[in-house]
């Protein structure tokens, strides 16, 4: 059976993909005032300030950790500078029990949920307190408590998983949904297409949030796709879609709130395309001067999402110069102190090499582990990080 009920024509009739153009939803102007006809979402002062503080915290964390990487304290780092509104504005519109499946640049969503600076640092330094037991590169956070699925580096793999997770939520009938974040680059992967198609067919309560920040490492969006962004693809799957100014925290919040209702109340999957810009380098290993101009970056620096929200808060008399200064100072101090603490902590014990591969360590691996321990005892100086553990370990 075919589900197509299309009109019949008798001469060749093509539809150009360029006809699918999707408008951009905006609420907040750069000066902190609202666009004519736009309405601020129902956000009370507490929540608005929680969003704002998280944006500032994330920015400071990013700046400090990039500096720490430059000083050689940290092997690697990735910033979300410029995209704070897209990530935090959307995360704030969810229920805390909704699942978040992120790509890697969404530290803001995790911070909004309450991940502490200590918890960030433990992962970044891969010390004994890192929930991931020092197995993954920096920024691959995860938190069971905060419903934040641990990050996997292979791009886009989390997108169909989000569809599956959300389908389980639908069956459980617990009124929750899953949001998955990804870049416009990752949206080229087959996994993205599989995820949207399955979500639409099965009517799954999942929100697909594409952070379109213009670049996938060095590849500009124009070399990523020929269409008008990622949003029009939703048409092909018969799915709800909205494009939002990703630097506009109020629009992101409002759009995600509405998307969540569609997902949870009507089992309609939604695609959100947040239009923003990756102000920083792709990662600490990248040098954007090799592929884009300072002028281009400057244009976007003018559209700073944090400043935009701050001006709105100031207009509402919810925020002041003094409070800003104080927040900046305390956060900087906290980040530095926490970093020192985390850096001093020992690495995870040697045993973490072989645990969690399976529920129990299989015999062959146990044997390899015993051999390794004997080897380390023989050459303790060659394995300083684990020599202590091996000596003590039975």
């Amino acid at each position: 059976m075919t589900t197509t009920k299309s009109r019949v024509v008798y001469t060749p009739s093509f539809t150009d993909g360029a006809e699918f153009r999707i408008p951009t939803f905006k609420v907040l102007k750069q000066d902190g005032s609202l666009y004519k006809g736009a309405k601020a979402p129902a956000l009370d002062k507490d929540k608005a300030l929680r969003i704002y503080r998280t944006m500032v915290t994330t920015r400071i964390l990013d700046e400090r950790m990039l500096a720490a990487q430059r000083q050689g304290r940290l092997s690697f780092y990735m910033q979300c500078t410029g995209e704070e509104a897209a990530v935090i504005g959307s995360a704030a519109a969810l229920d805390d029990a909704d699942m978040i499946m992120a790509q890697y640049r969404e530290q803001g969503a995790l911070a909004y949920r309450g991940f502490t600076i200590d918890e960030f640092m433990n992962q970044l330094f891969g010390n004994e307190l890192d929930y991931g037991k020092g197995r993954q590169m920096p920024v691959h956070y995860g938190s069971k408590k905060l419903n934040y699925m641990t990050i996997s580096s292979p791009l886009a793999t989390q997108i169909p998983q989000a569809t599956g997770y959300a389908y389980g939520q639908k069956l459980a009938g617990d009124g929750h949904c899953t949001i998955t974040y990804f870049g416009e680059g990752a949206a080229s992967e087959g996994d993205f297409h599989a995820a949207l198609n399955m979500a639409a067919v099965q009517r799954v309560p999942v929100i697909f949030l594409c952070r379109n920040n213009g670049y996938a490492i060095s590849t500009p969006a124009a070399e990523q796709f020929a269409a008008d962004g990622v949003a029009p693809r939703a048409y092909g799957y018969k799915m709800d879609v909205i494009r939002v100014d990703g630097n506009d925290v109020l629009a992101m919040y409002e759009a995600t709130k509405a998307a969540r209702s569609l997902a949870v109340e009507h089992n309609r999957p939604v695609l959100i395309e947040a239009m923003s810009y990756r102000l920083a380098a792709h990662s600490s290993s990248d040098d954007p001067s090799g592929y884009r101009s300072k002028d281009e970056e400057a244009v976007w620096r003018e559209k700073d999402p944090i400043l935009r929200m701050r001006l709105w808060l100031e207009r509402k008399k919810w925020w002041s110069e003094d409070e800003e200064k104080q927040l900046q100072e305390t956060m900087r101090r906290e980040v530095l102190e926490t970093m020192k603490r985390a850096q001093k902590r020992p690495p995870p014990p040697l045993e973490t090499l072989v645990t969690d591969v399976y529920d129990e360590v299989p015999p062959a691996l146990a044997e390899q582990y015993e051999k390794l321990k004997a080897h380390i005892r023989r050459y303790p100086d060659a394995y300083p990080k684990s020599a202590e553990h091996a000596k003590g370990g039975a």
Partner: protein
Amino acid sequence: MTQMNMLQAINNALDTAMAADERVLCFGEDVGVFGGVFRATSNLQQKYGKARCFNTPLVEQGIIGFANGLAAQGSVPVAEIQFADYIFPAFDQIVNESAKFRYRSGDLFNVGGLTIRAPYGGGIAGGLYHSQSPEAYFAHTPGLKIVVPRNPHQAKGLLLAAIHDLNPVLFFEPKRLYRASVGEVPDEEYRLPLGEAEVLKEGTDVTVLGWGAQMEVIEQAVDMAEKDGISCEVIDLRTILPWDVETVANSVFKTGRLVVTHEAPLTGGFAGEIAATIQERCFLYLESPIARVTGMDTPFPLVLEKEHLPNHLKVFEAIRSSVDF
């Protein structure tokens, strides 16, 4: 001759191939104007234009599917997979398509022009998704060739041979050596034979075999062993599939002992295949069990990667136990 690091040698090989034959194309994620995240394709777009060297959308199955089609048409694609860890989305295109194109069509069609380059291996603080050595997965697939260079000279000669080979070739580059390994590289075009191992050093007590970045590790281990009076024969396999059984067997006939090392996990690793074949060929000549020094049967760790990796001390210990057996 010019002093080059391995990246420069690879870049030079691509440049040489593209200059000689306009059917040669390079593409993949970020390979265009930026020259790739490791800079292996630097300046190629500037020199040969966007039609022959370009960024693809971020989709590995697309990159290799596209490359298969292009190769079937008669072009000579050199596709880059940014990290060997991300070759798996293209697994179906490689294992079911590239490898079987010729066989299933009775050679009506083939993708012999295809070369796939991917940086592999650990030791760069890359954790479980930037450190894998996936050669054994592909070695199980008839129809592919798998090549791993150990230094800049090998990289250029083997890559040019891979590009000109009439079969699909996976070319795994040891990224730990990209900048660390420097040496003299001929400026002109030259090819090193695929399917042939190279005996780097002759010896009488034990054969030590590896490929890629493990060759450096072997060199250090062998230095230690020789100080203890053990004479080692060192072989770089260079091509994992099809591999050079003759050279390895001939060496083991002489030494009676074999130590094989690779970074990938032990179980199902390619060392197992080598050990099985060599014990079949050389059973009556063996003085000790064939030893495998490999990564552990775990995903690749981050903080404890040093413990996980088969380093020179572990290889040295295996050489010694093999000789003392």
